[in-house]
């Protein structure tokens, strides 16, 4: 299977063709979630809690049901009250009971924006009127928003049946701390005592939203015999099907989930919000139902990722060898357990070879929307703290920050503090490429007398494999159709077509890829974990190889020679040598034309569970200018270096790196959830929740380092998540370089930078 060695001359992989779905997307023809319509369709809308924490005493839907044009009203009573059960169909674990109660509140509303009821009506206007007529009686309860407040013994408790897991003795009182995570290697406490230098810090990060441009949307239909179809935009049609079946108590085979184009997800569309409600409304109304969130609903009720408090401590010898490291991480989970604190605990020190490490994490519920996966879930916050501390260490030891990381960097055989040993990784090569970059070699210049600085930070992500399916069909004219189970969120149709074309030896525009629905392709895990090019790519590659075997077999039949006497190259069958006989080569079209006479249609489908995804490493270099008067931070130059294994379509790999970096810059500088004293979000719109816009950013140079992953046919590693890990550290370190102040609280927004400058001036004056 090792194409890297056996196929040194790739013809398609590594080139930059126009993506097969491109024309539809630049002309407005592509069908996203909200673009779908069905005949007879009615509109569904959700009634949401205005309270951060409240007992639902009663819900009176009678007035709403009497309103002309209202077709159905539902509450949690219309869904089975399901038991606690861990599920693994999205990205990371999800408890079915929690998911059900997140989709529609049962007994208690746990955050402002929590769904409590839903209606279906003949128009959006009538649906809105009906929402107003639903009478919900609440008993408002004390709420808690911040993570450390929620951990206090006297904090308002969200779940009476939640007891902290993994602590001794077993707690007898419920807590908002759902679990403690612990990893240790060596003896950190003793090693700190022997360190020449110790740096430490306490870092806080704000919750941020994935802020995909497309709000959640779906259209569903349920027939009277119970067979349903769900059209929606998500990161996994099989995830949609599994969750809907479970939450409604229906057979999986009765639900066909059709993936529409997805307008961004970044992890935030690896679970369902609307689809189960829409199905229940469609079943009760007998009409197709369309639902779409407003942007405000997206902010209040979906995503985000955790806000965190992280303490970090690193000890080193004078020569720069890190001897001890400790991290304590507290992550907001939102209203239900399940923050990404575990990967946070694993990723911070995963890049370094440190003999003594201790990491403790806490998963904490509070009255916020349940967090959802966001690009390298949990890692960016942890790395922000660790990479800031490493920058402090480099300064203290007067060692170049790249050299310090090289000196302690993970390499072949490094055992991580969470267990596994690194193999075939490209961290040192990534650091070397950063060191050799034009950016790093070019001295930083003062601009208009402003305070300028440069920072570097690194990032790690595991990447995953898992279950995927791909099918390759040779059409009657020799053109090729590829079907995969992975929603295309950023160009994966292109990479699937390219890998198939490479194996088949045909031009890429002869291969047309689609994303299949749940009834037309085998099970496939979500588009997440940077797994599609790796795992689904492996399935498509193997299916293509299966087709090549069949093509050789068909040629052998036509020539009446043994199949092993046939070679396949450049899209044609050749006799393997002079002994095989003298035959004119047969191309795909000629063999396809005769398929009926040689055994029938030529196609192959492969379903597999891909192992060996191969982790990725990044190193980002950032130059900033800080305006001491206003606190404004301007990114002057940005370079992102990453080990990508093998770039199948380099432009889309660069795009992942650039986009991840931009999201990280937003996280570093501006993005945050702001709550009022009642626990209500005050900035649920793009005006006040400030994502980076074009004028906020420079060009972002993406440098791809290719250390092949031996477990993928072309050497690919996941690339989508690594690039969001380093930016907060890189920006923070650049600000530290510019103004001499270590910013420890994200976002490093103008008011905070200005306050830090003022405090620093005050200290200097005193």
């Amino acid at each position, binding site marked *: 299977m090792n194409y890297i060695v056996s196929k040194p001359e790739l013809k398609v992989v590594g080139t*930059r063709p*126009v*993506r097969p*779905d*491109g*024309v539809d*997307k*630049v*002309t*407005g*023809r*592509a*069908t*996203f979630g*909200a*673009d779908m*319509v069905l005949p007879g369709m009615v509109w569904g809308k959700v009634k949401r809690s205005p309270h951060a924490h409240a007992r639902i005493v009663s819900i009176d839907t009678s007035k709403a049901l009497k309103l002309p044009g209202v077709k159905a009203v539902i509450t949690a009573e219309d869904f089975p009250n399901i038991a606690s059960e861990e599920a693994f169909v999205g990205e990371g674990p999800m408890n079915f009971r929690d998911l059900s109660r997140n989709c529609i509140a049962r007994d208690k509303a746990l955050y402002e924006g929590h769904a409590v009821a839903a209606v279906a009506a003949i128009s959006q*206007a009538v649906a809105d009127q009906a929402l107003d007529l639903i009478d919900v009686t609440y008993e408002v309860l004390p709420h808690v928003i911040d993570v450390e407040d929620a951990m206090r013994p006297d904090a308002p408790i969200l779940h009476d049946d939640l007891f902290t897991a993994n602590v001794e003795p077993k707690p007898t009182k419920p807590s908002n701390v759902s679990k403690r995570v612990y990893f240790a290697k060596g003896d950190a406490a003793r090693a700190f005592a022997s360190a020449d230098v110790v740096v430490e810090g306490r870092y806080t990060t704000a919750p941020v939203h*994935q802020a*995909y*441009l*497309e*709000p959640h949307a779906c259209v569903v239909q349920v027939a009277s015999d119970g067979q349903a179809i769900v059209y929606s935009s998500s990161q996994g049609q099989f995830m949609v099907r599994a969750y809907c079946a479970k939450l409604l108590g229906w057979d999986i085979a009765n639900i066909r989930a059709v993936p529409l*184009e*997805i*307008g*961004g*997800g*970044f992890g935030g569309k690896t679970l369902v919000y609307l689809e189960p409600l829409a199905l229940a409304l469609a079943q009760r109304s007998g009409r197709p139902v369309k639902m*779409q969130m*407003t*942007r405000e609903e997206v902010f209040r009720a979906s995503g985000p990722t955790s806000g965190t408090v992280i303490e970090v401590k690193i000890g080193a010898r004078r020569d720069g060898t890190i001897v001890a490291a400790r991290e304590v991480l507290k992550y907001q989970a939102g209203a239900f357990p399940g923050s990404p604190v575990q990967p946070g605990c694993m990723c911070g020190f995963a890049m370094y070879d440190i003999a003594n490490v201790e990491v403790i994490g806490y998963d904490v519920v509070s009255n916020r929307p349940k967090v959802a996966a966001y690009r390298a879930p949990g890692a960016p916050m942890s790395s922000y703290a660790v990479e800031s501390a490493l920058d402090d260490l480099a300064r203290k030891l007067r060692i170049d920050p790249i050299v310090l990381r090289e000196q302690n960097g993970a390499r072949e055989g490094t055992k991580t503090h969470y267990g596994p040993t690194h193999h075939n990784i490209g961290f040192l090569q990534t650091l070397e490429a950063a060191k050799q970059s034009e950016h790093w070699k070019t001295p930083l210049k003062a601009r208009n007398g402003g305070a300028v600085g440069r920072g570097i930070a690194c990032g790690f992500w595991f990447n995953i494999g898992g279950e995927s399916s791909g099918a390759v069909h040779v059409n009657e004219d020799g053109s090729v159709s590829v079907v995969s189970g992975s929603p295309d*969120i*950023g*160009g994966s149709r292109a990479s699937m077509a390219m890998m198939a074309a490479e194996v088949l030896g045909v031009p890429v525009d002869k291969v047309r890829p689609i994303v299949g629905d749940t009834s037309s392709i085998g099970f496939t895990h979500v588009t997440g974990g940077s797994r599609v090019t790796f795992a689904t790519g492996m399935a498509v590659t193997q299916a293509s190889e299966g087709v090549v075997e069949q093509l050789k077999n068909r040629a052998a039949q036509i020539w009446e020679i043994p199949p092993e006497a046939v070679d396949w190259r450049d899209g044609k069958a050749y006799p393997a040598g002079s002994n095989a006989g003298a035959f004119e080569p047969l191309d795909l079209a000629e063999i396809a034309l005769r398929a009926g006479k040689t055994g029938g249609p030529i196609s192959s489908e492969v379903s597999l569970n891909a192992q060996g995804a191969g982790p990725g490493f990044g190193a980002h270099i950032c130059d900033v200018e800080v305006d001491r008067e206003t606190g404004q931070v301007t990114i002057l130059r940005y370079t992102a270096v990453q080990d990508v294994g093998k770039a199948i*379509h380099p*432009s*889309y790999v*660069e*795009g*992942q790196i*650039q*986009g*991840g*970096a*931009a*999201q990280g810059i937003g996280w570093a500088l501006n993005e945050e959830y702001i709550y009022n004293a009642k626990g209500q979000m005050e900035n649920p*719109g*793009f*005006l006040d929740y400030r*994502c*980076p*816009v*074009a*004028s*906020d*950013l420079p*060009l*972002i140079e*993406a440098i791809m380092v290719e250390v092949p992953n031996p477990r993928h046919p072309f050497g690919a590693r996941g690339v989508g998540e690594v690039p969001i890990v380093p930016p907060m550290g890189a920006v923070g370190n650049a600000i530290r370089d510019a103004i001499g102040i270590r910013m420890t609280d994200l976002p490093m927004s103008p008011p905070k930078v200005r306050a830090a400058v003022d405090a620093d001036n005050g200290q200097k004056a005193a």
Partner: protein
Amino acid sequence: MSKHHITTTINGEPVEFLCEPQETMLDVLRNTLNLTGSKEGCASGDCGACSIICDGKLMCSCLMLGVEAGGHEIITIEGVANGDELHPVQRKFLEHAALQCGFCTPGLIVASKALLDENPNPTEEEARYWLAGNLCRCTGYDKVIRAVMDAAAEMRGEVAA
């Protein structure tokens, strides 16, 4: 409340529609006229996914009422290409891989066309500020800016088409 009868021109063709007085142009385009290329990302004029050109001016169709369309010339994403021939901005978006999910792409292309209609020779900074009203969460804008600058150069005849 009675509906208003509106006569307008969209993508060069005469169009008539009925709309409620409070309906936005975006809702009319998407729900009444089935022109779903214009997207709703925020409905508050902050993301630019619904960008259209009205009498040569770039607008967010979510901030315009349907009843305001009467008598004007409107271009939506569906009218940017000339039949099967893509506009240079559309072609350059594809060549530069300036889209990932593609949801903000119609708005960005309409806004870029409006920029180049008005200023055929923008600096990178001018392009960035012009497009600052169009959020893209996938690309980090790098390839978007490169595509727009390349399209501008081609339209000025500086490079072979």
